[in-house]
């Protein structure tokens, strides 16, 4: 050991110092390899279902036939990577179970994405627009709109996205206010807490959030206080939901490169810290 340290000690120390100064372009290359590799070579990682994902699944499973689920698809291209697989997984569940639902969006871009996912899943289950689901379109007004929608749906949404009066759409038959909606599932980069303030807190309606991972930490207190019935966290949530449905779609596909890149980041953080400590030690030796 002593001979090894004497012979290779200096080289080893220099090597360790280099670890803290890896060129950013090399890091980019490693990231690209970690992301691309799972798309070319089949790699599988086990998926464990969390309590928060199970919460959304359980409430949708319990939805009675005379009620609908409201999907607030407030996401756009900027967060497609997380919200698309989440929307797809939830819609897959709704259409497979035969639960009727309505889509709405609080941003103009969200209506198109919601419709696109619904049409994709509907093809698989041969579901029909108007009978199994409908699209309210873009509903501006945030908190004021949410409060008004809870009191009187037809008062806020006079026509659907195709211009059909809401009272003549079969899926909306006998659906008048929030009491006819079993659960609101808000799918967004940062789902609006107004659903908790003005719907869950006032009427006790189940609220589920499908958020980006970045804001999920802020959502956990709502789970603990039972204000949220469930939460899908980023791609992980979508993959777990697909596991519950026993399907392998986009979420399952995207979680593998995600795990690979996380592993790479952990390794790089460890290496950078070794480099940092080695450099500090080197400076001490030189100063002595």
């Amino acid at each position: 050991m002593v001979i090894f340290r004497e012979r290779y000690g200096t080289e080893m120390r220099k090597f360790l110092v280099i670890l803290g100064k890896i060129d950013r372009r090399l890091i980019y290359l490693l990231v690209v390899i970690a992301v691309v590799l799972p798309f070319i070579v089949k790699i599988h990682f086990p998926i464990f279902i969390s309590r928060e994902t199970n919460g959304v699944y359980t409430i949708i499973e319990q939805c009675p036939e005379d009620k609908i689920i409201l999907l607030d698809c407030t996401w756009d291209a900027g967060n497609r990577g997380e919200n698309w697989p989440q929307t797809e997984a939830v819609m897959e569940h709704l259409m497979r179970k035969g639960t009727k639902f309505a889509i709405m969006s609080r941003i103009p871009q969200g209506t198109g994405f919601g419709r696109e996912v619904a049409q994709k899943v509907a093809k698989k289950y041969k579901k029909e627009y108007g009978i199994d689901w409908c699209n309210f379109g873009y509903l501006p007004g945030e908190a004021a709109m949410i409060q008004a929608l809870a009191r009187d749906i037809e008062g806020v949404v006079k026509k659907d996205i195709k211009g059909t009066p809401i009272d003549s759409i079969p899926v909306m038959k006998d659906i008048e206010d929030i009491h006819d909606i079993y659960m609101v599932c808000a799918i967004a980069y940062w789902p609006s807490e107004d659903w908790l303030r003005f719907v869950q807190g006032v009427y006790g309606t189940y609220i589920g959030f499908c958020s980006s991972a970045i804001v999920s930490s802020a959502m956990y207190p709502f789970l603990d206080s039972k204000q949220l019935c469930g939460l899908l966290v980023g791609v992980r949530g979508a993959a777990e939901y697909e596991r519950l449905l026993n399907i392998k779609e986009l979420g399952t596909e995207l979680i593998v490169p995600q795990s690979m890149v996380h592993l790479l980041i952990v390794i790089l953080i460890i290496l950078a810290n070794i480099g940092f400590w080695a450099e500090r030690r080197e400076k001490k030796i030189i100063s002595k």
Partner: protein
Amino acid sequence: METFEVWIAAICTLAIFSFLIKENPFYRLFEHIFLGLAIGFTVSKTWIDVLKPKWWDPMIAGFQGVTPYGWLWVFALLGGLLWYFQYSKRYHWLSRIVIGFTIGAGAGMTFKGVFVVMMPQITSSFKPLNSFNNIFFVITLLCVLSYFFFSFQYKFRPIKKVSELGRILLMISFGAFFGNTVMTRFAVFIDRIQFLLREWLKIGG
């Protein structure tokens, strides 16, 4: 997606990714295209889906005598136009009417919302100490709260240690926040790579 759409989307993606090498005119061109598209789309969607069916059509119907009170919608326009008096030094006070109205309505809704959202969280923090999770939760809560006592100096050593522990626990939570940030950023990147490989280059699948 059609082949043409896929190619357009792929070129746009690569143009934005070119920023990773360095700032370049190709990136800037597509950045401006995106901005223009997003604003144009929002304006047209707002007019088609919101303003026209919910404000313009009822107002015109009112003026034409189809509905009795539809013309009253004209006051919504007048109220909205008051915002623009912010640009006038002389008539700036007129914009304060609509600002005051907006702040009042917003504050009222927030006041109502805060109680509804915060109270269940406060009550749920009173947990029985019958499991490891609950004990850990209560210790964390007390330590972090002690860190935010700014009214007196920490002369009593145990309190000082508790507040230091609170700071460490806060740092751990910030680490979790940052970990989630990494997760989201990579999810967006992976989605684009998946699109480029699967739909554009037709690799794998």
